[in-house]
């Protein structure tokens, strides 16, 4: 018994995981919790409603906007080549701002810096369409977010938020998504919080939505005050969640119930 305990201690010390983290080989995408019908909807490009936004984003990619009169394609060319793997490494560190930005914020920064166009509001159809189109180019690729050493303190910050209890229900994200992911909350599966498919089409929303929208929904669910869209706390959470899912395959635009 004592020997076993020593081995266990050594194993735990050697393991880079944080306490209560889901073991690497037990990680599952949210899609594995869904009914077969919903998975079929996600896997069929002509039944997946998220593809409507991808189609719109493709049209926006080559449409001139802003005072500079430039299109996305003027700088980035064919998105199939230039945007491959991009969404898989976001949120990424922006040196000018000195903090991480998610894909939505990156699109708006590019609009401001190169197109001289106004920022698109969070959850607006256009921003979701462009994000979905860019994210789609990474479908099937492994998530690589968080590798930039500059991001380390923000990943830590995100993890701290993930494990901090808050709201009237006094729950942290980890209380559900680390400790109880194999159970149900009412009729819904509690998943492992691996954001592999964002932006995704949620049947409950009847629309595509961003990871920030999902996070705000969860925060509201524990009866805490949600952060505003674009808040550094939400980006830190997004970043931590993406590193949590590092190596898992991108599914955007996914479908979820």
């Amino acid at each position, binding site marked *: 018994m004592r020997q076993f305990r020593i081995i266990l201690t050594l194993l735990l010390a050697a393991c880079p995981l944080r306490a209560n983290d889901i073991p690497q080989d037990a990680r599952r995408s949210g899609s594995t919790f869904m009914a077969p019908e919903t998975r079929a909807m996600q896997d*069929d*490009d*002509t*039944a997946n*409603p998220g*593809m*409507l936004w991808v*189609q*719109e984003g493709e049209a926006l990619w080559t449409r001139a906007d802003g005072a500079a009169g430039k299109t996305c394609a003027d700088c980035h060319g064919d998105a199939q080549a230039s945007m491959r793997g991009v969404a898989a490494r976001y949120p990424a560190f922006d040196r000018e701002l000195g903090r991480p930005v998610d894909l939505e914020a990156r699109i708006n920064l590019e609009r401001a810096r190169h197109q001289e166009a106004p920022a698109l509001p969070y959850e607006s159809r256009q921003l979701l369409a462009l994000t979905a189109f860019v994210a789609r180019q990474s479908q099937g690729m492994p998530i690589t977010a968080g590798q930039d050493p500059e991001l380390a303190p923000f990943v830590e910050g995100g993890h701290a938020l993930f494990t901090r209890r808050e709201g009237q229900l006094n729950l942290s994200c980890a209380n559900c998504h680390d400790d109880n992911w194999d159970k149900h909350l009412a009729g819904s599966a509690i998943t492992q919080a691996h954001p592999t498919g964002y932006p995704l089409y949620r*049947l409950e929303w*009847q*629309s595509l939505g961003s990871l920030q929208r999902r996070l705000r929904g969860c925060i509201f669910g524990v009866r805490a005050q949600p952060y505003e869209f674009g808040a550094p706390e939400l980006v830190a959470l997004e970043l931590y969640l993406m590193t949590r899912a590092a190596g898992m395959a991108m599914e955007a635009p996914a479908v979820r119930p």
Partner: protein
Amino acid sequence: MAALINVPQRARRGDIIEIKTLMSHIMETGYRRTATGDVVPRDIITSFTCRYNGTEIFRAELFPAIAANPFISFFTTAAESGTFDFEWIGDNGFSATAKAAITVE
């Protein structure tokens, strides 16, 4: 308005083929209210039709209980090469069309 259509490009004469259509639409029921109590006006697709070389082969009436971005799938027999014409009509003058070609051999 964007639509996604899935019709097999080729089929053998007499084959039963599946046609899948997905239309971008909010399908606002007209039963919801805003935070200030005003009714959000109804805005739905009311009718969908599919013509195969000009002949109507499928028609559906849509109602407020149908979800946003309606997905409609149905079957027909591949009779001859030609075109499927799809049309969606709805509230506030909504009208959208799409086409798909098929080769029957």
